[in-house]
């Protein structure tokens, strides 16, 4: 797989304060990578450095196999990438002018510019806006124009700096879905920065988690979400239940973890006697009515729990239970009604041994 971006020992400072400290980072051709982190983690700064808009204080940034040193090299490399910022940043002119801008400054032929612009507008379903002045567009329309302006350049790398953050939820989801259909179809190499872990889950093949300027974990989305490398990553990626315990025995790859005198059976490579952190995603906790003595699942872990709290969490409900330790589950409204859950009532919570992730606590 061709590596388009390679970063080594990158350190960047503002006023002598380290804002980025990245040992290594790679982006390969065709990869869609989401870089997730909270506000102030260094995501946007990192993107600007990769787009050669800012020079790092230290370290090497290799783009398309080249370590750019002078203005001319950076300019040439930048023309092979395109970046979309959080705000649309449109020029004070028509939609056509905005989308054609990059092609005009590359001195493309007029007819070629026209056909490419029309094609880009069609892809983003904004052909009807072609002659509109940029200042009269809604937020969603303006961001579509901004994306069209980048995609029309057929960049080898597309850098997206939280492009949907300023949009309302329905607009955000619609635009995100439309954009990613295009990205998948074009096999577009994309680095998408976001603070929204759910967005990362939906869009990306691979995910990197950044905190305080350092990349903590990078890998396939499913792996990172289900097997976070430390407590911070677990927390950030929505692992609602994080428990401290110790492996008291192990047999055939199955560990018995003692947590507050409760036993958890977990499939893990860790060894007997190790102090561990057990990460349980709320989606992996199944609930059953307490009246059923035997749960209808193959899960090794079943607990009688008392419901402590039920709260709305978007399209699902968040149920917090006490089963000797705090456990959180997400269930649908339908399940909530079917189970007729109420605070204070007993419930059976069930978790598969393969759904719990153990981290060594050193």
């Amino acid at each position, binding site marked *: 797989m061709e590596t388009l971006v390679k970063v080594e020992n990158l350190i960047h400072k503002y006023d002598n304060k380290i804002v980025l400290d990245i040992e290594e980072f790679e982006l390969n051709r065709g990869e869609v990578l989401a870089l997730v982190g909270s506000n102030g983690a260094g995501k946007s700064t990192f993107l*600007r450095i990769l*787009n050669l*808009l800012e020079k790092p204080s230290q370290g090497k940034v290799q783009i398309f196999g080249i370590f750019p040193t002078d*203005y001319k090299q950076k*300019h040439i490399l*930048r*023309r092979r*990438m*395109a*970046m979309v*910022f959080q*705000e649309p*940043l449109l*020029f*004070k*002119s028509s939609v056509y002018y905005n989308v054609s*801008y*990059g092609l005009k*400054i*590359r001195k493309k032929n007029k007819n070629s510019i026209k056909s490419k612009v029309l094609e880009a507008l069609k892809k983003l379903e904004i052909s009807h806006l072609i002659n509109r*002045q940029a*200042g*009269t*567009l*809604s*937020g969603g329309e*303006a961001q579509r124009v901004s994306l069209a*302006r*980048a995609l029309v*350049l057929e960049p080898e790398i597309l*850098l997206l700096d939280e492009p949907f953050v300023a949009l309302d939820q329905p607009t955000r989801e619609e635009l995100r879905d439309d954009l990613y259909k295009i990205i998948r179809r074009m096999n577009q190499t994309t680095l998408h920065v976001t603070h929204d872990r759910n967005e990362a889950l939906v869009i990306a093949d691979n995910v990197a988690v950044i905190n305080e300027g350092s990349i903590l974990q990078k890998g396939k989305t499913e792996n990172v979400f289900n097997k976070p490398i430390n407590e911070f990553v677990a927390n950030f990626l929505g692992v609602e239940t994080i428990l401290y315990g110790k492996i008291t025995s192990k047999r055939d790859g199955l560990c018995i973890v003692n947590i507050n005198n409760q036993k958890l059976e977990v499939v893990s490579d860790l060894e007997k006697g190790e102090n561990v952190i057990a990460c349980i995603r709320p989606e992996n906790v199944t609930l059953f009515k307490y009246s059923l003595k035997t749960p209808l699942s193959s899960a090794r872990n079943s607990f009688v729990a008392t419901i402590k709290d039920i709260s709305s969490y978007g399209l699902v409900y968040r149920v917090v239970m006490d089963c000797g330790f705090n456990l959180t589950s997400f269930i649908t409204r339908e399940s909530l009604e079917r189970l007729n859950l109420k605070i204070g009532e007993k419930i059976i919570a069930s978790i598969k041994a393969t759904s719990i992730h153990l981290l060594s606590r050193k």
Partner: protein
Amino acid sequence: MDIFIEGIKQAIQLLAELNREIFLITWRSLLISGPSVLISLLIGMPIGVILGLAKFPGRKLLLSLVYTGMGFPPTVVGLFVALLLWRSGPLGYLSLLYSPTAMIIAQVIIATPIVAGLILAAMQQLDPKLKLQSLSLGANRWQLLWTLIKEARITSLAAIMAAFGGVISEVGSAMIVGGNIKGKTRILTTAIVLFTRMGKFEKAIAVSIILLFLSFLANFALTYIQQRDRIYWKH
């Protein structure tokens, strides 16, 4: 009051007759002010953009110099240019004193800080990320400069109007370095001074009408362009 009314009547007659002397004075004014404005824009705009957007040591000092330059008395500028171009001065060997070139030099010195000052103010009002977006879309330095000036076109056009106004109506430095020589360096403003001193009020008034008309015409055209694209932004 009679002088005034009589002067206006005769001035209108001179203009209707397309008086040759007045026509040549007008043409010479445009030949001198036109290049002056152009050169001051070519120098002042990049300076304004750099000072408005870049950070570097000494920036505050340069800013102060630009702002001071915006208020330079034209007569003082004329004096310094004259000293430079004087026969015994450092550039005396060029023999430029009392020539249209000397007047252009003086007018450029007057107009450039005005252009730079207005453009830098315009740049500081732009979203700082617009520069990054333009670079990210592949603009080189000159394309970036042009893009940002276009984005701040309302103020950029105001800068052009201010520069033109500053040079077409300037008399102090024109008199000192030009000498108001008939057929060579006499322009609209110096001609008004001369005709008034000589009591030829009809000619002074005629030239004043032309000067006012030229000023109005230039500003009208630029204002039309400036306001034509004004859109009330949603966001």
